[in-house]
């Protein structure tokens, strides 16, 4: 075809879930697992330039260890156009159990990087206690690179924390945290502080799921 750029890369955005035991993978381990999946799929991935060429793939924002997710993304750059449904099928087949690709679509080159694609993360935290009432902390203290930082909760929390009783012994907390370029408030840290300030410091978090990202 005339005018077709032979160096054009096709940016395929893959949507996947990271569930159950895979919550405990580090970001690096997850990245490698996704790379191996792409290699196994046989898709024509592009290589980066430079002395040590590697797969051109970019990942969504890193999840904290222990957090499951229904809405993760990564972008892989292909050297050839492959039908997105076919690409999705072959990626699905080659992912380990508990990494579940559910959608794939091409995005424009000038689309924001995968790590900046979303600004709001919605979480559900399952806790092993019946939570009656929430008292939000005003500030949360975190340690970042040996420095103590104080984060204002209202900078990160959008809306309220809603409570749902699953059964006699367990509750689910539902909340939305904003992602800021200046830094983030991790959901596990947030939940721990909320439980403490509400008088449930002994409560254990059984599951933490990122269920929606926009």
């Amino acid at each position, binding site marked *: 075809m005339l005018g077709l750029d032979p160096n054009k890369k096709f940016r395929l955005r893959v949507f996947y879930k990271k569930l159950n035991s895979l919550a405990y993978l580090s970001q690096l381990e997850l990245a490698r697992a996704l790379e191996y999946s792409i290699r196994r799929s046989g898709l024509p991935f592009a290589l980066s330039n430079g002395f040590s060429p590697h797969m051109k793939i970019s990942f969504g924002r890193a999840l904290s260890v222990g957090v499951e997710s229904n809405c993760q993304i990564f972008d892989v750059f292909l050297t050839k156009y492959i039908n997105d449904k076919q690409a999705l099928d072959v990626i699905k087949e080659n992912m380990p*159990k508990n990494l579940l690709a559910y959608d794939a679509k091409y995005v424009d080159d000038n689309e924001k990087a995968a790590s900046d694609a979303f600004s709001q993360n919605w979480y559900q935290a399952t806790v092993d206690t019946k939570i009656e009432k929430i008292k939000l902390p005003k500030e949360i203290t975190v340690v970042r690179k040996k420095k103590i930082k104080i984060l204002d909760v209202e900078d990160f929390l959008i809306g309220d924390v809603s409570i749902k009783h699953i059964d006699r012994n367990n509750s689910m907390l539902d909340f939305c945290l904003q992602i800021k370029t200046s830094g983030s408030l991790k959901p596990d840290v947030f939940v721990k502080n909320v439980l403490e300030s509400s008088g449930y410091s002994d409560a254990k978090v059984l599951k933490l799921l990122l269920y929606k990202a926009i």
Partner: protein
Amino acid sequence: MDNIFDKIKPCLFEIKKASRYIGGEFNAPIIDANSDNFNFCMCYPDIYDIGQSNQAVKILCNKINEIDGFAAQRSYLPDPDAQKVFENNGISMFSLESFSPLCQFDAIGITVSHDLLATNILELLHFAKIPIRSKDRNNQHPFIFGGGPMYCNPEPYHAFFDIITIGEGEIATINCIKELKRLKDKGLSRQDILHKLSVMDSIYVPSMYKIKNNEHLVQTVFDDVPKKIKKAVYKDFHSSSAYDNCIVPFTELVHNRVNVEILRGCARSCRFCQAGVMYRPVRERSKENICAAVKEGILNTGYDEVSLTSLSSTDHSQIKEILQDLNDYTQGKGLRVSLPSQRLDSFGLDMAKLVAGEKKGGLTFAIEAGTQRLRDVINKNVTEDNIFSSIKYAFENGWNRAKLYFMIGLPTETDKDIIAIASLCEKILECAKESAGKKRSHNVNISVSCSIFVPKAQTPFMWDGQITFEESKRKIDLIRQNIKSRAISFGWHDPKSSFIEAVLSRGGRECSNLIEQAWKCGSKFDAWKEYFNFEAWLEAAKKCSINMEILACQNYEIGQQMPWEHISLGVDKSYFIKERNLALEEKTTQDCTFESCNNCGACKNLGIGNKICKAKK
């Protein structure tokens, strides 16, 4: 069996590298804890990062999972911090496929690839809540199998294993567990089962043998138990597929690559080498078999590197054709083919070009001794010509780094041989720099690693003692003083851990007490620098009244009966004696796959000869 993942999950928050304990890797089998299968758990007594690379675990799990009615899973020791967390939460050692406690399995296999894993075997059994001594187990407990290089002299481990498989597990272990299932289904008692298994080929049941009257050799308890146990050889190895299902770990290992076993066995006959005796005769897989396996391995794993593994891969009669085919295949795909340590006498110009790959890692050469005289004594048939031409070809063709292995404390060694190591390394560096040319010579570096000779059972040097600490230190200092160049880095193995290796390598049944005491005194992860506890071993030896110096350093009379007389690897004892005497005369023995037969007895005694694809020069 139970699936205790729900109990394990909450612990994972407190543990570093939790990926080691979650299973679920790509290509891992899916195993139901509740099925009717005979459940076998294959263990490596070290952490996941190390055990998951072990070929025996991979091969046996794959083979057992192919059999109807059998299921094999994996398990590895947690790192010590993680183990504390598990123990504090009431969790005992569990498998990675169905997360079932090891104590609920029908049988457990522990592969012992070197003697510094000894105390970890006990750590594993203890964490699994299984009595560490065979005699204390009852019908509720799994049968504990041992295998791996340990079988050359299994006596130090005799108290801990119910069954030890001698030789290749594809035959010995598989046959044994099939028979074990059959006997268990018939309802026989544990004792009766062990007695019946002891009669099988290549199966050693230590409890069916005992030491009488302060002698150091074992004798059988029953008449039908064989007096000598011969190793099993997987006779179809060469025609079997080189492709093995390969699990892709989430955890980053030292090497993340596909391993394809291209041949088994090595007939170079280096006199210190136990592996060469363990795996003879030599059996090569065909070029077509290997290349197909490489391609399938890459497709099924997504790895970008393949290692062609064996004891001496450049000795494969078709190695050049294999590398040529693979080079054509990997061209432009970003894939690499690597070979373990190269033979200096087969690394010519063409090999240098073929092993290129797209990235040039370091090359590894095992020279072992500094003078031709000593190389002839140990039968390392490598000349200075071989060394310098290999270095020349390598560095002319793009390599900048080489790693050289040497051994000190070899039989008949003198200071002249020691100083020669240093001068040889200097000469090699000079040659490397010259070959690399002006542009790259400042990038050239040589790293030298020196180990201390450990007399190994079932080798011609089994009667030679290890040198003392003082001697080790003196010789290492001598080398260091004589290496002047900064482009040569010199490292050496800890003489204390080498000493323990020597003790367990030649020790007899008394060493079970030693290992148990050492473990009770706090020894574990002896192969890890940060954990090796020499004082614990000294204390244990004192408590057991064992003189470790004799076991490690004594020079026995050539031909003396040693604790492993009842174990045969197929090679006649007369051959070992002949070889040891040839060493004294500084005479060499040639590789029988190149030259004529040396009458070691292996082919005759084992009923299978060398299987070579193409005639060698």
